[in-house]
């Protein structure tokens, strides 16, 4: 760890003039390296006026206006479907039946239900419901067929659901390890675009943006759904008023 020999030290080799402490940094403590890197940055940016503040570099935010068609619910449904995920619209009264039908159709026998998932959505299914407190082990999760979650927010333009580990969503591993993820999204949760969604999220929660099932195009660019994440994504979209009535 302590080898600070010059031969092994690119820092020492490079531009000694700009980094007087370079040779010290090679094998030394991180605290030194911090000072070295920051000093190099400041030296490299000598052309930036000392009184310039970051805000002096203007950033045009004109892109922030929403330019999407009005029916975000229809757009969201169409764009989720583009990823070869299944979207089923339903009314608030019919969520439990829709969930039951989807689980049945996928042959789900044991399903993870995170804390805070609305119990009224579970009244019709015959599947075994498995809770996560105390937390399931990764092995246990790996043996389960499906995870049910709600979402924090959704994005119409990109067909994305965002999980923030809040009530009904559980910790991140739950929606990752079982091979099937069924997510219940309420129409009111759909933001039109990415800026709209991000504005409503808390950066101090772990956030997972999910756009369709896990996929790869690494083999001859042929898209294959399902590598390590869930291979099947079902989205139950709860719409109070029939917003899809008009074309």
């Amino acid at each position, binding site marked *: *760890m302590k080898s600070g020999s*010059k031969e*092994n*030290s*690119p*820092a*020492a*080799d*490079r531009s000694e003039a*700009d980094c007087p402490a*370079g040779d010290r*940094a090679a094998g030394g403590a*991180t605290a030194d*390296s*911090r000072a070295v*890197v*920051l000093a*190099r*940055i*400041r*030296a*490299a*940016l000598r052309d*930036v006026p000392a009184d310039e503040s*970051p805000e002096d*570099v*203007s950033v045009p*935010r*004109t*892109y922030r206006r929403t330019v999407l068609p009005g029916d975000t619910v229809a757009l969201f449904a169409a764009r989720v479907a583009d990823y070869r995920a299944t979207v089923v619209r339903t009314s608030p009264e019919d969520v439990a039946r829709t969930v039951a039908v989807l689980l049945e159709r996928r042959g789900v026998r044991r399903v993870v239900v995170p804390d805070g998932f609305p119990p009224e959505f579970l009244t019709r299914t015959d599947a075994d419901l498995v809770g996560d407190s105390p937390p399931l082990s*990764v*092995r246990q999760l*790996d043996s389960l067929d499906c995870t049910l979650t709600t979402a924090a927010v959704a994005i119409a*333009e*990109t067909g994305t659901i965002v999980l923030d*580990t809040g009530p009904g969503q559980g910790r*991140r*591993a739950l929606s*990752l390890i079982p091979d099937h993820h069924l997510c219940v999204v309420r129409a009111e949760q759909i933001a039109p675009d990415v*800026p709209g969604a*991000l*504005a409503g999220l808390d*950066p*101090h929660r*772990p*956030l*997972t*943006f999910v*756009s369709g099932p*896990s*996929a*790869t*195009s690494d*083999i*001859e*660019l042929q898209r*294959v759904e399902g*590598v*390590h*994440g869930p291979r099947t994504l079902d989205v139950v979209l709860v719409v109070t008023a029939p917003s899809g009535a008009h074309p």
Partner: protein
Amino acid sequence: MTDDSDHDGRVWLGTPAFPEAARSALADTRLRHNLRHATTTIRAKRLDATGEVPHWEELREAGAAIKRRTTRHLAHYLEQLEANVTAAGGTVHWATDAAEANRIVERLVRAGGGGEAERHEVVKVKSMATQEIGLNEALAAAGITAYETDLAELIVQLGQDRPSHILVPAIHRNRAEIREIFAERMGERGRAAPADLTDDPKALAEAARLHLREKFLTARVAISGANFAAADTGTIAVVESEGNGRMCLTLPETLITVMGIEKVVPSFADLELFLQLLPRSSTGERMNPYTSLWTGVTPGDGPQDFHLILLDNGRTDVLKDTVGRQALACIRCSACLNVCPVYERTGGHAYGSVYPGPIGAVLTPQLAGVRRAASLPFASTLCGACYDACPVKIDIPEILVHLRAKVVEAKRDDRALPTPEALAMKAASTVLDSPGLLGVAQRAAAAGGRLTSGRGGRIRRLPGPLGGWSATRDTPPPPRESFRAWWRENREER
């Protein structure tokens, strides 16, 4: 293809200078076919995905501006990032160079592995920064096995090969080759491929899923890169497709993220831009399947020990150059590769660096020094397609021209004599705008260069992971054949 016999994965030992490497790549028909198919496909998808956004140009403009702001105030934002990651329960380390970064990772892996010396394994999610510093090889030398988990990286790693594209590192392999690699090699590193493995991409993906699942479920330490890091909150973003990233970021107890210092962005809100620019420019999707954002440590969820390593490794040298520094804005989308007529025909290996294509041609000479990659700034026709495609509007042709002048200057300094190239370049600074005249000037320079290259001193061996490069390369004499001459001769290939 390049000669893989002596590479160590970090730098590409024995890679010839670009023109020769490109010539051998051009002779490989299958490689050319794969590349053309890939770049054409991704290009079309990208145009669809960017074309449907009415304010795409405004997004690019804002992306470029954010990066300009960050670059000009980099120290400020890094200090802010450090404070916020630390406040959220993470630990921040600074690494001046590759060797230091590797040592930090090694130490953290040992600490996180619970002291069982015989069982040091880590899972990794694709990261160009860790490729750049040769982390896997450094860990191997320290007795730690790193498992790449991105499907393409797995193909490259099992095939003992090099990545050839930022986004699709195994773009040079077809399904039959991949089947063979999986069938032969998976068993050596864990669960073997099924005996009846076919070359159907679905079956190959399934084999990778089974092979890696055991690693994910038992890994104690994961290593990732970062696509973005928000200074004002300390939030890190990793953008991916397969879910291997989520596995690495969620299941192990210790997470080590290695990030170039240029990846910081001012605010969490700025991610709204980059999460639009990156997927559409990269894979041509409205959004990639998975994006993970995390801030420090979350009790009861994910790794409880989080380390962020901020890596310099030549970036502050790039920063010094007021023209060249815009290359630090790169978000590694690979759009410039896919539109580049040179890349399409030569592939990534010819660039002899982890950063191929137009961005590699401007970044590698700056990170490693123009003397060590003197032919790369000439690996372009200056057609401008890369600039038009770049989501953060990096003016790659401008940097190329600038670096060409620096290459010439460096050689003149080395010899204390004006080189034929220097004379030609001096006389022709306006000629650079004129492709016809440039060709003439370059050919003249190359013709002169052959006569005088014997005078050029061999540069001393350079330290660190890039050392191997200089060990096997002399200070490149002026390219025997100018890039344009090579290009003309070879372009009947179609």
